[in-house]
């Protein structure tokens, strides 16, 4: 082999290796610390108040107005608590996705949830340093770096930070939960991805296991991070759904945009995750809010609304709530879902639903093929036909019986998460 041939073959070999590694690397699951994907616009120095419309009726929301509190009683506008009476009941028949095994899977997945467990996990973490002094950082930016790294280690799927804003805290905590007990300066918002494999099996009860597992992880990850902050010398409090409204906090923390179905959409995680938060008195550098075309996408798509079995997701344009439904917050222009219809349907089916999340075109497996397709979605003009293409490719349909038949086999063969 002469020198020319050697160089040529070396170049080809390098090309093959680089090509293979590039594709393999793209297939791996990346950590989303500060989302900066292609098509994502970071609004430097802006806040949620610059990106969303508010009017004079905007004020703190009372937690006892949310639909779950209304179903628990002690409210002037109660709703039937049917769902709470039937959702966790032992199953008598081994129907597909609704059998004894499925119920057991759901109960195991949600082990860290439930009233007593929530009291254990979602509690204040008081400063707990060796020398009694909080650790000093050179800047809030440096402190944020370590907090985000720790959140990543504790298995948060994405993390963002916003300043503490009383407006997005509940006016009054429902009596069962702790007050924060200190004045926070920052809120660390954590996204916990739900298991796509299981979640897509909604609306049969086995689908609930995907949400339940994420709820368990919310409790674990947020309480670990609160403990991390307390050992650094800063009072902190972990939180799941309580204390503050998660979606606006996550928008403020630069984690995504609000969608038609009322949930947050993240540029890479899509729609399949839950939100936890940690309130802390540590001064942290907030993220800037982001947009990635959700407003225009949801204006055109409406797939969640079309697939909602209870018609709870609106087909109308964004608007200010008129106050007819006390569970819908007034003062913010948004797509308001009708939680009364939604919750009533949950009771009828003895299962929470999630069809809006699983039919959303953003609900896709996180792999390079779909990330490539998402590049098209952020292209102006393509958003208008994305729903049509999504339907044409058959995404977001109700699961077939085959999917329920094979689910345990797929779980058995699941690959362990690699470092």
């Amino acid at each position, binding site marked *: 082999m002469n020198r020319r041939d050697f160089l040529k073959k070396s170049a*080809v070999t390098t*090309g093959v290796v680089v090509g293979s*590694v*590039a*594709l*393999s690397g793209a297939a791996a699951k990346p950590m989303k610390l500060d989302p900066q994907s292609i098509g994502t616009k970071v609004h430097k120095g802006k806040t949620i108040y610059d990106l969303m419309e508010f009017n004079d009726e905007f004020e703190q929301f009372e937690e006892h107005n949310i639909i779950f509190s209304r179903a628990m009683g002690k409210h002037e506008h109660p709703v039937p608590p049917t769902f709470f009476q039937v959702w966790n009941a032992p199953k008598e028949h081994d129907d597909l996705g609704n059998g004894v095994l499925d119920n057991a899977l759901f109960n195991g997945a949600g082990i860290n949830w439930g009233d007593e467990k929530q009291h254990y996990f979602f509690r204040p973490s008081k400063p707990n340093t060796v020398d009694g002094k909080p650790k000093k950082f050179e800047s809030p930016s440096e402190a944020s770096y370590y907090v985000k790294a720790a959140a990543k280690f504790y298995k948060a799927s994405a993390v963002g930070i916003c300043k503490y804003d009383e407006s997005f805290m509940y006016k009054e905590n429902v009596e069962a939960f702790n007050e924060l007990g200190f004045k926070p300066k920052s809120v660390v918002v954590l996204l916990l991805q739900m298991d796509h494999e299981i979640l897509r099996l909604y609306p049969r009860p086995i689908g609930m296991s995907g949400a339940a597992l994420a709820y368990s992880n919310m409790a674990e990850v947020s309480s670990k991070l609160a403990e991390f902050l307390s050992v650094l010398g800063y009072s902190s409090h972990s939180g799941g759904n309580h204390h503050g409204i998660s979606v606006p906090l996550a928008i403020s923390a630069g984690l995504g945009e609000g969608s038609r179905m009322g949930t947050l959409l993240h540029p890479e995680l899509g729609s399949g995750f839950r939100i936890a938060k940690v309130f802390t008195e540590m001064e942290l550098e907030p993220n800037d809010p982001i947009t990635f075309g959700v407003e225009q996408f949801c204006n055109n798509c409406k797939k969640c609304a079309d697939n909602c079995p209870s018609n709870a997701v609106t087909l109308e344009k964004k608007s200010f709530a008129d106050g007819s439904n006390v569970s819908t917050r007034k003062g913010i222009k948004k797509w308001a879902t009708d939680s009364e219809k939604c919750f009533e349907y949950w009771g009828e089916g003895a299962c929470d639903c999630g069809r809006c999340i699983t039919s959303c075109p953003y609900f896709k497996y996180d792999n390079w093929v779909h990330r490539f397709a998402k590049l098209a979605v952020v292209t102006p003009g393509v958003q208008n036909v994305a729903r049509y293409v999504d339907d044409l*490719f*058959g995404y977001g349909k109700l699961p077939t019986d085959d999917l329920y038949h094979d689910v345990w086999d797929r779980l058995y063969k699941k690959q362990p998460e690699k470092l």
Partner: protein
Amino acid sequence: MLIYAILGGLFVAVQFLIMSKLKQMGKAQIWPNGILVLITNAILFFSLAWVYGSLVEFEVQAAFMGLVTYGAAGVVFGILAYRAIKNDGKILKSTKN
């Protein structure tokens, strides 16, 4: 992941083999031959990766639709590449003479 790595390797290898063959024929100019071969190759391998990815997700309709749409795009570019190679770099053969 291994399948994607193999497809990536095959993509680079096929591109190299075709360009070597074109070089032997004296038709390995970058535009249009090289670029069109690269686009064809990339689209066809992407459609294969799409089909594999969709079947793994149990999205059979998505697999077939991907094969049809991306595959068709690959075939179109393949025809353009073939014509360019056959007609000495001209995609549309001149009819003036």
